[in-house]
């Protein structure tokens, strides 16, 4: 399992846009032909056909490219969500009882149920059309970015581990440990503002890094599978934090019986970025820096190259003289640090009035989906996390105003990832042309067919 993380997708980096769009198929196709041969085949295909093949070819590339697939995937997922909403809506069920006498009623009910839900989702995630002025109307978007903040950092952590061939399911534990450390510094230490906040951040990031580092170290020294160890560390962190929160004198707020911490000191809190109207905090800037850092690490640094090499093929990396165990430990340290940053922004930015053992809010697991949707690339993770943050922000508004349970968001999110991962399926549904190498990628038969066609042409 560890040998086949989602990082097998050689072309999943945003740094190489000039590749022909056919590679989009190869991105999830582990066994697809190498990009080089695909490119060659693309040229081969371009050289055949009518006199001026450029425009049909350009069109074919456009509709079979990854953008068309992504849009198609979103459309399909939204459609799936709509079906769920329509099927379970009370008014739709009532109207469908007399569907054959007045079908219009059913359709109208479906329209208002589905339309209302998605309108509310939009209103809660992007732009509040009912607001009086633009400053208020933009608030949902700021909410979405706030929800996206920890997801970005956590998604980066999971994605980085993916690139090195490691599956980090331990996001929850790393976030909890980081929250505990950052929280303890946040309310227990006295220091002036920027210093105190930075101290708390360092504590949180270091705690997350060390927690994930345990898994990396065990993997490197004893070969213990990181999936087991990170899952187990999740539980250990959870119960450990529960103990700290329930014990007076440790993390529990003085004079309280609840398992919650006291509020963070003002000097440790990440200030609001755009004033008190919006809850977007300084953490957003930090995670943007993290995105840039991870991009640099993966694409411009020796260490990142080692990570990627180890992820692609550990045996080859070892033969090439790379220290695989060391890379395993380092990548888990960095990944844990990023998840620690997520925990830190939760404690110092989002929930500053004291937190319980649910401070991770499912981010550790959402991060896996974010990393997968973002194709384990930093900019992809950024976009995916903002999308998921928007769903989170919009979902609660949808639940409050339309009574549609927020879980529908999970359904739509997972469908999007599922469809994006399977471009051939989306193309088949929308009757988009399948790019040539995909069909012929099945082997010599396809190539032989093509050659015959060329000969006959």
């Amino acid at each position, binding site marked *: 399992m560890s040998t086949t993380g989602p990082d097998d997708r050689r072309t999943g980096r945003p740094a190489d846009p000039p590749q022909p769009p056919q590679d989009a198929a190869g991105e999830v196709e582990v066994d697809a032909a190498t990009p080089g041969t695909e490119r060659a085949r693309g040229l081969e295909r371009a050289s055949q056909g009518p006199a001026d093949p450029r425009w049909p070819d350009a069109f074919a590339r456009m509709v079979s490219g990854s953008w068309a697939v992504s849009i198609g995937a979103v459309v399909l997922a939204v459609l799936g969500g709509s079906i769920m909403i329509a099927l379970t809506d009370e008014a739709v069920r009532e109207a469908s009882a007399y569907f054959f006498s007045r079908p219009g009623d059913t359709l109208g009910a479906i329209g208002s149920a589905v339309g209302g839900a998605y309108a509310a989702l939009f209103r809660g995630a992007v732009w509040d059309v009912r607001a009086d002025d633009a400053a208020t109307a933009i608030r949902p978007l700021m909410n979405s970015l706030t929800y996206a903040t920890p997801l970005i950092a956590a998604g980066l952590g999971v994605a980085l581990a993916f690139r090195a061939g490691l599956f980090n399911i331990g996001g929850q534990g790393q976030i909890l440990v980081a929250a505990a450390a950052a929280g303890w510094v946040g309310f227990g230490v006295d220091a002036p503002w920027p210093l105190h906040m930075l101290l708390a951040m360092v504590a949180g990031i270091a705690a997350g890094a060390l927690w994930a580092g345990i898994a990396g170290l*065990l993997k490197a020294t004893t070969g213990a599978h990181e999936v087991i160890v990170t899952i*187990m560390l999740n539980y250990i962190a959870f119960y450990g934090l529960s103990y700290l929160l329930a014990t007076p004198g440790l993390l529990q707020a003085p004079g309280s019986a609840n398992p919650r911490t006291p509020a963070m000191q003002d000097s440790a809190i990440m200030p609001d970025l755009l004033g008190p109207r919006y809850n977007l905090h300084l953490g957003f800037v930090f995670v943007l820096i993290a995105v840039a850092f991870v991009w640099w690490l993966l694409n411009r640094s020796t260490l990142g190259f080692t990570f990627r090499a180890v992820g692609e093929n550990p045996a080859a990396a070892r033969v090439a003289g790379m220290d695989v165990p060391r890379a395993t430990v380092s990548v888990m340290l960095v990944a844990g640090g990023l998840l620690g940053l997520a925990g830190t922004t939760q404690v110092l930015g989002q929930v500053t009035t004291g937190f319980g053992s649910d401070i991770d809010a499912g981010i550790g697991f959402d991060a896996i989906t974010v990393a997968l949707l973002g194709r384990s690339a930093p900019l992809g993770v950024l976009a995916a996390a903002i999308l998921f943050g928007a769903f989170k922000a919009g979902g609660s508004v949808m639940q409050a105003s339309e009574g549609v349970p927020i879980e*529908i968001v999970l359904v739509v999110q*997972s469908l999007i990832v599922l469809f994006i991962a399977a471009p051939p399926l989306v193309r088949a549904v929308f009757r988009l042309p399948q790019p040539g190498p995909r069909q012929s990628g099945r082997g010599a038969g396809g190539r032989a067919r093509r050659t015959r066609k060329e000969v006959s042409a």
Partner: protein
Amino acid sequence: MSTVATVPAGAPADAARHVRVVSRKAPVAFAVVTGLFALLLLLAPREGDTLFRFSSGTEVLSLPDAAVPGMVTAWVCTAIAAAVTAAAFTLLAAGRRVPLVLTLALALALLVGFLAWAGAGSSRDFSVARLVGGSILLAVPIVFGALGGVIGERVGVVNIAIEGQLLAGAFCAAVASSLTNSPVVGVVAAVLAGALVALVLGLFTITYRVNQVIVGVVLNVLVIGLTSFLYTQVLVPGAAELNQTERFGPVAIPVLSAVPVLGPALFEQSVLVYLMYLAVPAVWFAMFRTRWGLRLRAVGEHPKAADTVGIKVPRTRYRTLLIAGGIVGIGGAFYTVVSVSSFGEEMTAGAGFIALAAVIFGKWDPVRAALAALLFGFASNLEGALSVVGAPVPSQFMLMLPYVVTILAVAGLVGRSRPPAASGEPYTKE
């Protein structure tokens, strides 16, 4: 890794050393664990007797309860553990590997010692029957999940979606059993639900060759989303008709349930538990003693070779995956037709991930994976038993213990585990 004894005399020195290094882990782990336990006894001695209750009142021959001095028993157990450790080192010196029996003996000795220490001075007793019976109940979904996971990986498909299959099984069993007032229909529905999730997994991983980890993770989220959505929208308003299941009652097996000590714990259970007893050896037999199993493993280890001799790789993978999904589904049904009588949001609470850990812990072997699952069940049950006697340790640390033990065991005993060679690899026919 297991061929320790057969290093030829003429082999290079570094080869022999390599083998030694690998095999030394178990004795060292034994020594560490025994040492830690002795340290605990030294640092936190406790006064008084510990009560062990062996009878539950229904056996033919009931053993009397035993009150043993806590610390003495704990030290005796430590001595036994030390002896086991010494035996392991002796075997190591003789160049032989440590058998599983020795590991189990050490675990048992330390467990009894720990219970004796924890229960010392308490007026409440440890009921052995309750310890064992409760562990088995808690382990049932994990065992079924692990069996399904093992089968899936053996045929070359990594199944991260065990959690989703369990949850889908629990949901469908709840609805079907409530509608028909028949737990059997509930189990059938759960099997179908598990297989349906497996079908989607197969569609994306086998036909569309999407990365298996991606699909597994996403299917978990999808099933959590679907079941929670339907629960809030449909099950909560219609709880009386849709979410009020008929449960399986315990059935006593005539002779076996009268066996002293363990009889009632093992053989006065519900039908699904007996199904689990049968499923584990059945899966082992099917996998290692039948043509079906040979083909399955061939497809998982070397699909190209299997294809060359005429085994249809995608078809084998689909069929096996569906069977595995059905097995996991039974585990899901356990939640709603045995454990409790209604479905709750995310009621599987990570059991699928524990099952995944059991698959790896058990080195992709059905029997070992089932044992690992039992260990998890036992560990979760232990906390309850210890809180009854008023253990001296904060309950959070008790709850944490199984996971710490697992990490130690995985790092110390299992080590580098090798999955089936083609597990996770989509197969493209050349």
